[in-house]
């Protein structure tokens, strides 16, 4: 089948959409395999006849909830596209700031744009059929995912941690070097790009199925990080995933 695709964007940097346009070698083949009918960043046409909706961004305004529900009602398949859609992404940092600060600190008054709400993941508003994780999404993973849909095969994400990919690339472990890294509890699929470039894994792809958070916490505590610091690192992307905040790491 040649599925009809819509790409939609809520609160985000639109970098995940850009990753699709960054498939320079494959883009021409891709548009033969699928039909983009709605993709505002790339095209003027705004078709409503999409079968698969890729939804980028988090929900941060009341009005966005209705827009998302309309997309859900039209699409047979809805994909949470990228970290903002999947787990709230970096947007979630807004939720830990005092609400009365949001508007006053940014606009100096609180009467404008006051329909802003705490950040929600797509799954907090509508049913999500599939997830493409990451900040940004991995281009290759997107291609494999679309291929699977075209061939009507059930798409699958890796259920092992980034550590596995990191080791297979022959990297020296950042945690062993005394640095923090969330690769041991974060879902793989990025080919461990950050630790390979000697940057910390910030957990942008969300957690593995059964993450051993307690163990990572203890190791990082031993390395001299405080509980507060560790929770803050988890909170960068996974603040809504129930692992940061008081009490959640106690058991």
């Amino acid at each position: 089948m040649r599925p009809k695709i819509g790409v939609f964007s809520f609160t985000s940097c639109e970098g995940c959409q850009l990753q699709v346009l960054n498939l320079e070698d494959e883009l021409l083949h891709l548009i033969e395999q699928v039909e983009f009918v709605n993709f505002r960043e790339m095209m003027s046409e705004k078709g409503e006849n999409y079968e698969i909706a890729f939804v980028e961004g988090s929900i941060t305004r009341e009005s966005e909830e209705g827009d998302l529900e309309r997309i859900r009602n039209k699409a047979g398949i809805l994909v949470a596209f990228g970290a903002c859609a999947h787990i709230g992404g970096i947007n979630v940092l807004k939720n830990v700031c005092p609400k009365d600060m949001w508007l006053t600190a940014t606009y100096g008054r609180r009467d404008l744009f006051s329909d802003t709400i705490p950040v929600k993941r797509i799954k907090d508003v509508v049913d999500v059929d599939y997830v493409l994780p990451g900040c940004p999404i991995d281009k290759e993973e997107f291609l494999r995912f679309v291929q699977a849909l075209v061939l009507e095969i059930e798409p699958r994400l890796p259920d092992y941690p980034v550590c596995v990919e990191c080791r297979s690339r022959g990297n020296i472990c950042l945690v062993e070097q005394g640095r923090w890294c969330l690769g041991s509890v974060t879902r793989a699929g990025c080919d461990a790009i950050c630790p390979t470039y000697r940057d910390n894994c910030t957990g942008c792809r969300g957690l593995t199925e059964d993450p051993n958070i307690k163990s990572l916490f203890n190791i990082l505590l031993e390395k001299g990080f405080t509980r507060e610091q560790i929770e803050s690192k988890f909170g960068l992307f996974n603040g809504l995933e129930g692992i940061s905040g008081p009490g959640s790491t106690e058991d």
Partner: protein
Amino acid sequence: MTHDIHLHHITRVEGHGNIVLNVRKGRIEELRLEIVESPRFFEVMLKGRRFDEAPHITSRICGICAISHTTASIKACEMALGIMPSTETVLLRKILVNAEILQSHILHIYLLVAPNFFGVGSIIPMAGSHPEVVKRALRLKKAANEVCRILVGRHVHPVGISIGGFTRVPSKNDLGEVMRTLEAVVPDMEETVALFKDLEMPKFDRPTRYVSLHEDGEYALYGGMLYSTDGPPVYPIDYKEFITEEVIEYSTAKHARSGGESIMVGALARVNNNYDVLRSEAKWAAKELGLRVRCVNPFMNNLAQVVESVHAIHDSLNLLDDIAGRDLRCGKEDGMKVSAGRGVGVVEAPRGTLYHDYEIDENGTITAVNCIIPTAQNLANIEEDIRALVPEILDLPRKEIEQRLEVLVRAYDPCISCSTHFLEVKFVG
């Protein structure tokens, strides 16, 4: 003539925006460029976090200009902490800034602007009608992305570029690959100049204040003084004397002005202000394209982007020659000394001057943040342009007015996610 125009969610721009225009008997009664992108509150999010998280967090302001945000953020932190990056680090950052300019401009001129001249709604039908144009666009875009991939893993949210240096130092082989990648697209860039030479930009002149960085002897993208066509240069740290922001009730992006006037930033402003120090290849391109400074037609921003793309490639090749003879001392030092301070990082993002201003306390915690985004600086000017343009085109059919306005807004290459996010045009009754 009465028009109620409401262009809702302007397409082929980054983000969500509308134009509302209400014309009664040939007079504009209402004109708003509404920015309806959801505010994201980055300035609030950064407060209370450690300074070294800022580059990673602020990269997420914009997928298209992730390297500019990361670089401005790094520069702000370095100034606040008194860190001097090595010459090699700066050279590599300049190559990355060039790569982002190239990637962003190619995306804009080919994927967003060109379909208009071929009478189609996107690049997709062009793949059938003009495959050589589309393939060339993709080769150029890929080259820019490859430079980023080799040096910092990827373009959208780079990794390994960091305060003080690079966490992964590129090898000589990496630099060789960067050079071969850029050399390979020099002919494609020449073809691009030839293509755009034949595309006629709408005629419309309105002089305004052009603002950019400026530096003696160098086309200023990575640093320099704040420079306006009417006024003395200003040090980045004093930017608040140079540029002011105001909250507009119908725009989640603020409007910025300089000296109380609307300003234009981005490719055309930079070419206007810094033409003399463009690479000779870029000056040739400007000549071919009929872009003569000072150019006061905002539609020509599209062609200024072509000129800058030529510059970006050749300037990077030159920087690579410079690096080739050096030891790559660009590794990030361990154990940065943290002290309280304020830093302002300014860089030319593809769409114009980008400011990050942080205050950091003695524990390394960020206590105050201000970011000024290029698109926010252009918004007031776009409105002024629309105000001046509408009377000139009022006799056209409504559909054409709408299209011309959308083309005008798109020529500024607005980045609405950045400025919060962008565009729809509403014609009101």
